[in-house]
């Protein structure tokens, strides 16, 4: 049994399903069902969040390995077990999911159509995402990873914008195609190691020639999920067309699933291939940072601009992971958390305008700082965090990644840092077009500032942005141990290889 004394990870993972069951049994007229569904979903997610915080306090940061491990026999004959556990890397991604979900549910309050179904899909989504981060068996991981598609497809397709159907199908087919190649890689590694236990797989050597193929398969699946350039084309469509809560989940949490996959599978299990592919990944990351930043600069729609900025920041995360230095990987992890929170904040800011019946076209906004000072302050804070201003969460992640990259390659670090400048460029354009300038239309002067519900969404996010920015070590000390262990394992795995290379020379 684990140190919590009860299967806490399973409880966190499957508790939202209890909410789903409750929602399914709601009866009554439509308005009552909708109201009850909203509150039931919110309470479920808050209870799960409380459990998550307990998990954080009970977590022992000195241990590099997995904690709260649960094992139950599952697929007999295949030797696949239901196995859950967290280490310092997955703990915060779980907490990020748990933290963002209630906020996203709050942001779903204005949705009027088929509320109950929406909340059911949302709680299912939470289960799948938490399960994925907590899974310690490759098959279990794969199931959660893939199952995320089902609720998300419906969320985009039913409650999305005008081109929702195209966006939903594109999203589904892109991600499915990617993950099925991972399934092949999974089956191969399974045959190789005789088990799908992630802990065992982490220590099972794979011939370097095969590693390259497996890496390509992982790149296809995690690259699509993390929207690595050029596999990102589904993203602007999906982010643009999804309803606000869906966009928040996609940007804040689901893009992290891909990065987590690289960190948990590709990098430690395929060390030689990862090292060999690092230049490629750096190139992709740098292209994402620079090219996509320019694309963001060219956007005329607020939501799409934020979407592209998200792709650019994923580039920074990818660079950080493939430096294989403690700083770089920690920076990537930190950036994952920070980006999740900041991007959620930015999308909520755009949603607040949408909720007031405004357009997202930058040319038709402007001057909002006068009548909406609090809104302006919030948007400003998240924008500054997004461009990596010291004192906000964005700074820590980016600086760590740049330091890590500097140890490996000067140019990568320089070009990656250029992303911060470009980030500042488009975020400032956004701020000017939305908050300053003059009103482009007289009706903009009549907008009201934040409501109580909007405070409830933005304040926790703002607090987290500052907490992460001002006192980062309350987070970094937890992923120190596993990241250091991972980097050491990576170096050790490469060592005999180089020794042989030297001998042969």
């Amino acid at each position: 049994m684990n140190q919590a004394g009860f299967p806490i990870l399973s409880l966190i993972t499957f508790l939202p399903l209890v909410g789903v069951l409750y929602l399914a049994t709601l009866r009554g007229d439509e308005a009552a069902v909708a109201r009850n569904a909203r509150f039931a979903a919110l309470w479920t997610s808050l209870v799960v969040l409380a459990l998550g915080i307990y998990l954080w306090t009970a977590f022992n940061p000195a241990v590099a390995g997995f904690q709260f491990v649960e094992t139950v026999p599952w697929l007999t004959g295949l030797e696949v077990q239901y196995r859950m556990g967290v280490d310092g890397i997955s703990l915060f991604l779980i907490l990020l999911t748990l933290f963002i979900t209630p906020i996203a549910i709050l942001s779903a309050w204005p949705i009027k159509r088929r509320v109950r179904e929406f909340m059911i899909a949302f709680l299912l989504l939470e289960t799948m995402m938490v399960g994925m981060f907590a899974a310690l068996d490759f098959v279990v991981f794969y199931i959660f990873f893939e199952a995320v598609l089902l609720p998300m497809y419906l969320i985009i397709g039913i409650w999305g914008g005008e081109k929702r159907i195209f966006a939903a199908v594109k999203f589904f087919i892109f991600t499915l195609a990617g993950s099925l190649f991972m399934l092949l890689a999974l089956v191969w590694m399974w045959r190789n190691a005789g088990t799908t236990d992630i802990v065992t797989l982490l220590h099972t050597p794979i011939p370097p020639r095969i590693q390259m193929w497996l890496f390509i398969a992982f790149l296809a699946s995690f690259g699509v999920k993390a929207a690595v350039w050029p596999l990102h084309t589904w993203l602007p469509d999906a982010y643009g067309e999804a309803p606000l809560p869906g966009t928040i989940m996609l940007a804040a949490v689901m893009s992290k699933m891909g990065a987590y996959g690289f960190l948990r599978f590709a990098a430690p299990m395929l060390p030689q291939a990862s090292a060999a592919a690092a230049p490629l990944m750096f190139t992709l990351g740098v292209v994402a940072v620079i090219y996509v930043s320019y694309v963001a600069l060219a956007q005329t729609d607020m939501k799409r601009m934020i979407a592209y900025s998200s792709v650019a920041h994923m580039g920074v995360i990818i660079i950080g992971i493939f430096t294989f230095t403690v700083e770089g990987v920690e920076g990537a992890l930190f950036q994952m958390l920070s980006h999740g929170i900041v991007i959620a904040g930015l999308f909520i800011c755009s949603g607040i305008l949408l909720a007031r019946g405004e357009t997202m076209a930058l040319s038709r906004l402007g001057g909002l700082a006068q009548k909406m000072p609090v809104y302006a302050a919030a948007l400003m804070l998240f924008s500054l965090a997004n461009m990596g201003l010291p004192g906000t969460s964005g700074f820590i992640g980016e600086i760590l990644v740049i330091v890590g990259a500097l140890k490996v390659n000067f140019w990568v670090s320089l070009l990656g840092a250029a992303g911060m400048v470009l980030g500042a460029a488009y975020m400032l354009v956004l701020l000017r077009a939305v908050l300053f300038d003059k009103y482009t239309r007289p009706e903009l002067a009549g907008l009201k500032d934040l409501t109580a519900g909007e405070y409830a969404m933005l304040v926790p996010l703002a607090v987290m942005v500052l907490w992460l920015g001002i006192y980062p070590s309350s987070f970094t000390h937890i992923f120190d141990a596993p990241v250091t262990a991972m980097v050491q394992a990576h170096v050790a795995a490469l060592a005999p290889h180089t020794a042989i290379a030297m001998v042969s020379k």
Partner: protein
Amino acid sequence: MSFAPLIPALLLGLGGMALLMFGVFSRRERATCCTVGALILLVLAAGFTLVAPAGKLFGGLLVTSTFTRFADVLVMLGAAAALILSVDYNRRESIARFEYPVLVLFSVLGMIVMISSADFMTLYVGFELQSLALYICAAMARDSLRSTEAGLKYFVLGALASGLLVYGISLVYGFAGTTNFASLAAILAHGAGYGTVIGIVFVLVGLAFKISAAPFHMWTPDVYEGSPSPVTAFFGTAPKVATMALLLAVMIGPFGGLLHQWQTLVEILSIISMALGALAAIGQTNLKRLLAYSSIGHMGYALMGLAAGTVAGIQATLIYMAIYVVMSFGSFACVIAMRRRGQAVETIADLAGLSAEKPGFALALAIFMWAMAGIPPLSGFFGKLYVFSAAVNAGLDTLAVVGVVTSIIGAFYYLRVIKVMYFDAGRPEFDPMAGGVRFVMAVGAIVTCLFVFIPGPLVSAADAAARALMG
């Protein structure tokens, strides 16, 4: 010799005849009575099958084992679901006749004989018994042009398949000198001549016809579309399981020693079926035709396990078939529930807007479609996982890669059904569905959804069955 293993077959045969007599000599049409009677008989037979001891009968003409038990129960499950679905549909289409349940019972009897056969003679008798009953079922709606056409088409092509099968059997008999499976296995353990191999190819082709593996699938879309929907539901489940089980038993039993000779053939069948099932279904607008192509694809995946030729492979095929049966009768329940103002409708476009009007129905169909596409956590994924894993472990990497690619293509058309139900606007205004249809749909959906939590019983039963077959 103990007759205990024979009780299920006797029960079905004698019970079927009793029902036939009852139907013939009653004054009124007794379709519902007979259906209920047939259902009871199926349940009893399934119960006896589960407790029947393993053994040989009639000097090695029939064997029963854990393997036959597994397949028998699956066949009876499919038949029972098809019967439940038929009650209301047949009444509304005014084709409710007492002969239908009787015919279903006789064809199930044929299937049981075929699954248990340990000799080519019994195999052929069982095979023909089930086929003849099925031909009549296809043409059940005898005033409908489409149904008659379906029956005729099925009969002509089915007769061709039987001809090929019997020709193959005669070749094997001619060159190997026996029709008994055990003796054949001993003779063929160390290789075989060309004559026998050609015979095996013919046997394989004859059986491939019946499971509608491409390129011997031509009858499937037309027969699926033309037959009354409950009959299609029956075609899609029980005969496929029975023939697949027979294929496993024959290829692994008497021809097991020649794995390297037939492995490539099965691989080719599997690849063509998966590809055709995925590609040809894209253009379909009729849901029944879509399911027909999808079933061709599923047979391709199931054959992957046979191609592996290992215990894990057989187990994978059995698991796949069991999961497939449930998904299949579930989706046919959905097809049967599609009635508007007393008329059955079948096109995908008719489903537009269903999710707003009947959320439960739409959810059930979405679950079946997703499961067929193999999206976890639904049961269909586990079927694919087991066959892929068996194929890769047997070194058939190409097969697994093709399977993955066709899964992606296949997902596209399954997804389209869901898209139409959930995203498109429309008012299906379907008539209220009958209790039996609702029951089958709900059971199918629940099993498909919750399989992920309790996979153990099916997996271990399939394992035991596979071990019993491989010896």
